[in-house]
């Protein structure tokens, strides 16, 4: 039995905080605004979509500290144990002069009403530290999670382009003080479990993975909170009680990506951002998809494990993972089982997860060199939108030119992420030609009966789903270029 601590510890700007009266559903934003009276961080939507509440969270990553923009509105205070929270109030220099990012925003007229501005400054701050000489694509990616209704963004992008001429991140206080901060954060990591409150106010931060397994076995109805990009909304939108809540964001054992024998294993706690750098090298199509999930803030918080465990029919990662033949490891206590990912999704809101069980890792077999793999997301707005239709394709063509294997999966077309088995059957064994594709299209009607909602009509979903197969063929065959629009130079 590990030791138990009854407070959370973190750095807030320049202060060390020890809090023993944290509620499981207490958001970082409410804490900053209501208790600390740090009013620079704004509430725009309370659902992680507008970015007005963006703050930086520094977390230990090996021997360094990594600063990432997050949405304070859906980030729970308890998840910050052992982290450094940096708010807009920390940027101005002691002599009253502006931070380089702030000065650039002023000089390029990047604010009008000013309400989104602190959040945008924080996002640009994170960008500048990571990428001092950003491309337009870097800037746009960094701003995917920030809405501005006044400027049309042009002056903000101009400011971002100019950041490097305003200052050098190496001389930024967060760089100069890094060693001190790392030491402080390491000192907070005492390897203990954290438990605060009881009953409807109980929260637990497990000491390690085994501790999580033990806690969950004892409290099978607890809410597991990883990135809180969904659970956060249960609280802010629906005022749902999530106690007892188990915060797993700190568990390094769940944040690993490894590769062996042609299979990538992604720990359930790996964030989209963490996964991106690995996957964009090994599975570029998947990497590019991840770039279109949420904004940077959501990608820094949200986890692949959460995207799966949550069971949403419009989660973006399950269809490509299913197409690739991924398997899922679930754990209860010391017991583990591994199942095909597609079998995890039973029905709307129902997954094959037993009480006390949690998703530990997903295993993704790398496609063979002859496998053609693609995934496309279709949404009303290109970035930071929820999928209308998402199609993923893994297909091999035999030496005789016929389809040897096909795994096709869709999101947004059914109550769960779902394979297009009838379509696959209609393709396998047939010559890989446009005729075959056209003849396979009616099979979509057997595989799917999509719904109409505010994102898309059933008719559009069906039509776009079919057209993605056409696009897949066109791209593979190379007969028609370009096969899709692209905002950037390289094809997406």
């Amino acid at each position: 039995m590990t030791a138990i601590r009854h407070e959370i510890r973190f750095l807030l700007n320049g202060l060390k905080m020890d809090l023993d009266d944290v509620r499981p559903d207490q958001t970082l934003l409410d804490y900053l605004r209501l208790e600390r009276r740090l009013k620079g961080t704004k509430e725009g939507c309370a659902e992680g979509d507008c970015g007005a509440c963006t703050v930086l969270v520094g977390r230990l990553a090996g021997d360094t500290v990594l600063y990432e923009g997050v949405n304070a509105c859906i980030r729970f205070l308890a998840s910050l144990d052992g982290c450094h929270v940096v708010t807009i109030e920390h940027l101005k220099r002691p002599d009253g002069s502006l931070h380089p990012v702030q000065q650039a925003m002023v000089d390029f007229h990047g604010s009008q009403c000013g309400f989104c501005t602190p959040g945008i400054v924080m996002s640009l701050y994170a960008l500048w530290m990571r990428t001092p000489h950003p491309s337009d694509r870097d800037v746009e990616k960094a701003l995917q999670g920030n809405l501005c209704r006044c400027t049309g963004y042009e002056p903000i992008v101009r400011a971002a382009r100019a950041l490097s001429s305003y200052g050098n991140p190496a001389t930024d206080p967060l760089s100069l003080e890094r060693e001190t901060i790392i030491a402080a954060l390491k000192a907070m990591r005492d390897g203990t479990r954290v438990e605060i409150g009881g009953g409807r106010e109980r929260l637990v931060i497990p000491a390690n993975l085994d501790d999580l397994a033990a806690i969950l076995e004892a409290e099978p109805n607890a809410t597991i909170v990883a990135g809180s990009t969904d659970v956060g909304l249960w609280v802010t939108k629906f005022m749902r009680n999530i106690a007892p809540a188990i915060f797993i964001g700190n568990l390094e054992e769940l944040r690993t990506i490894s590769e062996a024998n042609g299979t990538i294993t992604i720990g359930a706690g790996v964030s989209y951002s963490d996964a991106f750098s690995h996957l964009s090298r090994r599975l570029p199509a998947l990497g590019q998809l991840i770039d279109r999930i949420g904004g940077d803030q959501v990608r820094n918080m949200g986890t692949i494990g959460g995207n799966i465990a949550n069971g949403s029919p419009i989660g973006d990662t399950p269809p490509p993972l299913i197409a690739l033949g991924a398997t899922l490891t679930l754990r209860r206590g010391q017991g583990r089982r591994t199942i095909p990912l597609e079998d995890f999704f039973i029905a709307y809101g129902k997954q094959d997860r037993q009480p006390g069980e949690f998703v530990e890792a997903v295993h993704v077999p790398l496609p063979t060199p002859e496998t053609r793999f693609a995934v496309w997301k279709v949404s009303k707005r290109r970035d930071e939108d929820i999928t209308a239709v998402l199609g993923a394709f893994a297909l091999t063509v035999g030496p005789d030119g016929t389809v040897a294997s096909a795994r096709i999966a869709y999101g947004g077309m059914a109550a769960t992420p779902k394979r297009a088995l009838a379509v696959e059957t209609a393709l396998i064994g047939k010559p890989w030609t446009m005729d075959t594709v056209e003849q396979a299209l009616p099979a979509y009607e057997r595989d799917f009966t999509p719904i109409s909602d505010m994102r898309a009509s059933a008719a559009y979903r069906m039509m776009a789903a079919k057209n993605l197969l056409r696009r897949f063929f066109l791209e593979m065959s190379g007969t028609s270029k370009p096969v899709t629009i692209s905002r950037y130079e390289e094809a997406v």
Partner: protein
Amino acid sequence: MNKHTAPDLTSTKITGGVAVNLRHDSAHKHVTGEAVYIDDMPEPAGTLHAYLGLSTVPHGAITSMDLSEVETAPGVVAVLMAGDVPGENDVSPTGARDDPIFAEGEVQFLGQPIFAVVAETREAARRACRLAKITYDEKPFVIDILDADRNNPRLVTKPMKLERGEAEKAIAAAPRRLKGQMRVGGQDHFYLEGQIALALPGEDMDVTVHSSTQHPSEVQHMVAHALGIPSHAVTIEVRRMGGGFGGKETQANLFAAVAAIAAKRTGRPVKLRPDRDDDMIATGKRHDFLIDYDVGFDEKGNILGVEFTYAARCGFSADLSGAVTDRALFHCDNAYFYPAIRAVSVPLYTNTVSNTAFRGFGGPQGVVGAERIIDEVAFALGKDPLEIRKRNFYGETDRNVTPYHQRVEDNIIHRLVAELEESAGYAARRREIAEFNAQSAVVKRGIALTPVKFGISFTATQYNQAGALVHVYTDGSVHLNHGGTEMGQGLYVKVAQVVAEEFQIDIDRVKITATTTAKVPNTSATAASSGSDLNGMAAQNAARQIKNRLIDFAVTHYDVPREQVVFLPNRVRVGNQEIPFADLVRQAYMARVQLSAAGFYKTPKIHWDREKGRGHPFYYFAYGAACSEVSIDTLTGEYVVERADILHDTGRSLNPVIDIGQIEGGFIQGMGWLTTEELVWDEKGMLRTHAPSTYKIPLASDRPKIFNVKLATWAENAEPTVHRSKAVGEPPFMLGISVLHALSDAVASVADHKIFPCLDAPATPERVLMAVERLKREASR
């Protein structure tokens, strides 16, 4: 910057006069998070928080209301319903008395406020709201324009008709004729700072409300009515809003009224801030329209006669729908001369939230109708739409009478469009696009160049007045106040520039202060793009009064002729000597000269007779043009805006960089309206797009990949407006229409420009794909 520095007494030009680039006065505070919005203000001890309970059905009689669990919930101090309103339970801005604060007996849309909970914390109030048990006898409801009875429609306000010539005859006699219909969607304002009010009870009947409003005087009147007290007891103050766009013109009334009622009831300060979902569900939006048109034209593309019907979803009450639908008709011509025209509005009652002002105020929907017929006429004749546009432009000396019988006397659209056509390389790019499309099976490109002519003035003539209050203190520093509100558009800095220019003092000597009904009374909404035109002139008037008193004083005191008193930068030359401005002020004070003045302005020339449909409703017009190019994916309907070029007229700009910000932002907001911003109600009357997760305003990555914005620097206002500048708030919004037409052009290419796409707005990827599919089907027949 707040640094206190001694003014430069040798400079040849002041810092921050008119017609210079000057950053937003709050820029430093914006980027540091130090700018104070109402929710950031320190709350007085004892502040309570209110939250609204909303209806859950779109239409029905309230049969029972059990709020007992609400009342006994933890932290609850009071529950307010219709019967708790001390004065009138109404916040209708035009006196229609159809806009209850709390629904009484009947609810008319899903999301209508029925009660408010007042509690120790916002969370307690919010939680308690969910405990209400309300039952309804549900009634039939009308959500969509298409569901309304077209033969005998229920209207929320009196429709308008504009008529000049005999349109029906002209259309019948025309060589060519076409009829059509178009849907154009609504739009949520999505100001980043939501609605909010903080009410502080005072002694006697007094109450002060910090309200995020574009119209402090109206909020004052509404709070007074609701409390049943005189306006003098109510003070409304607003330093800044986190965005308004028309959404805080009348929509702030209810929140301020509830906060004020609660504050007077409990004797404690009360803050009311709905969450984003309630804000979007319970407050009005841009009107969506169904536009029917019938147009007669000749083989060259000259329009000979037009008939329009503009039917709008107004929601359950009148609000500003009369003026909004009027303005749609005022802009059904855009920049085009119609020899004969008949246009009517149909302001429909629907069981949806009452739609309201939104940047352009119906004008954009009017312009969309005009551009639609131009496009369709061009299609019918197989001509480039730009050729038809130019052919039908208002003349500069003839063919210049509008459907409302006002003559267009300041027309610069010909030169503006010619310059943009040239600088954007329109003709060459159209050829390149045709070549590209011939080679590209999946991706298709399209281009469009559309003009804007927008009428400036409130069409309700009485609103075209403004007041300002200027104090000069004995150290020569200046306190500036006026009726305009700051929502990010840079009004405060522009008006300060005017005052600095007038006194010839550096702008840091002019203190910008929060708008308050206690300093300047009976103000108009900061709306209709009128902010700097009206308040700039009023402030100039106030400054001139004081300046004239200083001149009078100098003439007497120094015994010099009047023309020898000249205001130089930060100093005044009196005869042969130069006296620092502050010194002259001090001397004037010693001589008991009044150093404070209330300024006033009313727009000349304008008048309007709505019954007759005749008059001179607009003081002048603002012009602009945009050329947009898009790529569409014909497999999914997704698109990218490749490039946009804009040339826009702000007269002799007071602050070019601020104006360019308005143009860039307006274009993107207009583009968003017509592309990804889609309001969706379900079959139960519930708005399904009530948060940024479901309602998609443009992102940085939706901007045109290439975006060139220029001011027509040669333009100046033909009318003597403040330093010959022009209004800039609304007109650029309509530049976004070029994107819709570029999308239509790209869609049309799949059928070799032989079939008209009839693309409705918003042109979401779904609508684009459906149009592509329809054209492909029809072309293959």
